[in-house]
């Protein structure tokens, strides 16, 4: 066998079996990476429309009951919402740095940044839990124990229904994100993630950033309306 043939054979061997990251239906790791990114984005399109329907509902009700929405929004504590925005944006930075570490094959930094991302995600959920707890005590939760000034009693329940629904759905996405990140830490720990094969990190990162973007819209629309009045 010629040296060329041997080189080719070993290359094929690597492509079909040796490199554990490459699935057999793809020609190359680059193609596989592109397909993974595209697939994740297709999923994110459905997520955009999923949350989009709720944002639209919010827009309609706010148009009809703007007075009640302003009054209800003012009942929310501004500092936990602001701190959570900062926490989540910081977690997006550490996620981006985790992808960077994966791309450069820096396993130590990768695991560290993934862990910090998970920590920040947990802090977010903790603060969110505190807010929910405060809300329950204040009688913000819609239902028989709901308490609000008589003028806006019915309409304010719509605001708080949307508040709990949208932030709750967002929190569920965060919890799923934490689960995904735990798997990523495990994969990185085992050495599955390399500078050649980092799709799982990249694609999980896309999901994490998307959840951050949802919060970027939720924060001003839920917490910041009518603060000047």
């Amino acid at each position, binding site marked *: 066998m010629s040296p060329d043939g041997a080189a080719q054979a070993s290359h094929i061997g690597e492509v079909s079996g040796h490199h554990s990251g490459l699935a057999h239906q793809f020609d190359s*790791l*680059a193609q596989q*990476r*592109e397909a993974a*990114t*595209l697939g994740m*984005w*297709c999923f*994110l*399109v459905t997520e*955009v*429309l999923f949350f*989009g*329907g709720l*944002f*639209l509902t919010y*827009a*309609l009700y706010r*148009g009809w009951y703007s007075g009640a929405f302003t009054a209800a929004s003012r009942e929310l504590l*501004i500092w936990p919402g*602001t701190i959570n*925005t*900062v926490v989540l*944006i*910081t977690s*997006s*930075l550490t*996620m*981006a*740095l985790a992808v*960077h570490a994966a*791309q*450069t094959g820096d396993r130590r930094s990768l695991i560290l940044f993934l862990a910090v991302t998970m920590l920040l995600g947990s802090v977010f959920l903790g603060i969110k839990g505190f807010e929910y707890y405060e809300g329950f005590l204040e009688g913000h939760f819609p239902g028989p124990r709901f308490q609000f000034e008589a003028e806006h009693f019915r309409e304010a329940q719509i605001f708080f229904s949307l508040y709990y629904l949208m932030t709750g759905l967002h929190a569920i996405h965060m919890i799923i994100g934490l689960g995904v990140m735990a798997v990523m830490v495990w994969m990185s720990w085992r050495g599955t993630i390399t500078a050649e094969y980092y799709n799982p990190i*990249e694609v999980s*990162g*896309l999901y994490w*950033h*998307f959840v*951050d*973007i949802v919060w*970027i*819209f939720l*924060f*001003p*629309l839920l917490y*910041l*309306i009518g*603060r*000047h*009045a």
Partner: protein
Amino acid sequence: MMSEHILPKRLYYTVFGLLMLCTYLTVQAAFIDLGVLNTVVALAIAVFKATIVVLFFMHVKYSTRLTWAVVLGSIFWLGILIVLTLSDYLTRRWLTYGGA
């Protein structure tokens, strides 16, 4: 090739700084009475933040055209959802039946 594109860390820090600045601005702007513009400013800042997250943190700026098409598609379909629905709700009072 997007696969070969490793962005410098400095770019991530810059985007992070911008996001923090925008968060500060959006909170400050909320306490100033701008009338209808309060909502416009809040949404404009949020859209800007989302855009830089998508372009840089999510690497779309360096992605293939197919990815671009899907990303823009999500915005387009969201636009259909919002514009068509609002075109109904916002115009319901335009018609007055039986009157002039």
